[in-house]
């Protein structure tokens, strides 16, 4: 190969890739407003992003999959956990993760800071990023829940317990966590109807409970979970 040919490879390779990259960058900027719902990106969301950065949240958590890998991804945290559970984690991490093997620092956030972080996470949760992450995708893994139920490999209630990540707080067999009561023992004290009502609004039945609301589920789905939980207690005494 001549030196001339080598220089030609350098210039053609570099400039063609640069032109494509800058052209697409320009086009991407035209699309960001629609894809990120920039109309909903108000001063509160921006203030929330400042709080998010000031407390270096991103060096433990990922968001959009970037950052530390030490704590759950926050892209869809608002949708996954619900607002109550997000607030509990922000205000009292030492309680929320009291029995977890991994802790979150108590950062002494002010109530306003918590409000703004919630605004920020709500906005992030709504952006259109091609349905990532898969674990929070309605169309991806909730489809696998439907397949399990359809194939009778699991009862609908068990599938919902898995889908709603109940085991992130409760234990079942040797799986899950110990933040809330063990699922097998709940129905030794309560019946299925009570559990279904409790799922809709835990505070109404047990003021001060740290359990998040599951009012995003339909009544039928809450009943299915309650009946599954009740079935676990058969033959057990409190």
């Amino acid at each position: 190969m001549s030196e001339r040919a080598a220089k030609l490879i350098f210039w053609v390779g570099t400039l063609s890739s640069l032109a494509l990259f800058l052209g697409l960058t320009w086009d991407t900027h035209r699309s960001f407003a629609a894809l990120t719902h920039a109309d909903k990106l108000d001063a509160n969301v921006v203030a929330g992003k400042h709080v998010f950065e000031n407390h270096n949240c991103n060096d433990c958590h990922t968001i959009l999959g970037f950052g530390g890998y030490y704590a759950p991804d926050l892209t869809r945290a608002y949708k996954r956990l619900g607002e109550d559970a997000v607030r509990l984690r922000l205000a009292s991490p030492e309680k929320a993760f009291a029995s977890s093997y991994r802790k979150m620092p108590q950062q002494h956030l002010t109530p306003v800071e918590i409000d703004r972080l919630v605004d920020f996470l709500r906005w992030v949760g709504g952006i259109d990023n091609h349905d990532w992450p898969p674990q929070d995708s309605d169309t991806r893994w909730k489809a696998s829940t439907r397949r399990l139920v359809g194939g009778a490999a699991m009862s609908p209630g068990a599938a919902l317990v898995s889908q709603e990540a109940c085991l992130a707080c409760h234990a079942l067999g040797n799986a899950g966590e110990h933040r809330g009561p063990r699922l097998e023992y709940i129905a030794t004290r309560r019946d299925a109807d009570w559990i279904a009502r409790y799922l809709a609004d835990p505070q109404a039945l047990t003021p001060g409970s740290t359990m998040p609301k599951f009012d995003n589920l339909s009544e039928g789905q809450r009943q299915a979970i309650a009946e599954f939980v009740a079935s676990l207690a058969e033959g057990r005494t409190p």
Partner: protein
Amino acid sequence: MNFKSQRVAYPYFVVALLLFALQLVMGLYLAFNYFYTVPQAVVDVFPFSTARAMHTNLLVLWLLLGFMGATYYAIPEETQSELAWPKVAWAQLVLLTGTGVAALVGFLFGWTQGRPLLEIPSALDVLVVIGALMFLANVGVTILKARRFTATQGTLLAGLVFLAVMYLFGMPFYENLAIDWYYWWWVIHLWVEGAWELVTAALMAFMMIQLTGVDRKVVEKWLYVELGLFLFTGLAGTGHHYYWIAAPKYWLWVGGAFSALEPLPIAFMLIDTWRSMKDSKRPQPRLTWVYVIGMAVLHFVGAGLFGFAHTLPQINYYTHGSQVTVSHGHLAFFGAYVLLNLSFFYFAIPRLKGFADGRYDERGGHWGFWLTSSAVVGMSLAMAVAGVLQTYLERVQGQPYIVAQSPMRFWMLIVFLHGLLVLAGALLIIKHLLTLRPAPARSGA
């Protein structure tokens, strides 16, 4: 060493090596956090996030100080003239090291910009920019005064200017998180798969010319081809970070296609380095080649192969932001940039100390290389196992994050144990480099 001002490279190397050791200690603490439950009282004062900010900033700081020292060594040789302002080079080292230390102490007290790898607060960013300008001015003026231009130093200077300009994109506050990450990658990706590759290619070309005595024309001809391939794949390849940030769907095609080609220039560099060694007309210490070839091989495996494994969007959808990324990141940074710096230190320090023909006493040095390199490979494999577990349990099965992490903790213990070996090996290397002695007289020679 033919020029007195090249001496300023040595303190850069010393500071870089000390920061390297500190970086590894912080890394061990991070791995420890993964398998051991650190109590709430400790987490409140010194969380994982602070340790991670220190680990990553130390990495960037020492690698850049190493590049700068290497540049101060190479530029006088390339221009055949003394550095324009050796004292400015000293002041720059003091300024950048001081800024780095201030940033690390600041992190302990929560003074941060809060964006991964770019945590240094804006006030200190200004000092970093001043340091970078001092550096570029010093190198630029030296080249202009000497009026002797080579492709190698042109590439080096272009890489360094490119590196400095990209840093600016990481400084502002972006209101929109998607746009924030868009330009965050202009810093991180265009550094490691752009500017730093230019610096690497230039320093490798410089070392090859000096080590082997192969004709400069031949080395620099292949340098053009290598750079063309690096920039062709690397620039548009930035798109592999834009799959899931709320950017248009065409990035899945562009990022996937261009980044799938990214192993090619690295393979090219590996073959080129191997050929140069075979064509070498000058005998060199064996350890020098162990480092240079070790760098080329692990650069290819860590950046090329481990990167390729999860760069296609169909795979990346499930692996993105998991320990798979961590595994790739560690082996790639070690193979490409840690070993490049160490190779250059082994090349330059004997010459700075005026040993005959750049020969040195290799005893002890081989242990450091093999212990560190094999431990980093083992560590990355353990991280990869944890990453595959996470990908399957959390991403495919949909288990809650903390439930999926549970079986990964064993593998993070394995990571920690390998980390201890990495630290031990690195300390051997650092001690060997800082106490380098001339080669023992050959018997019968």
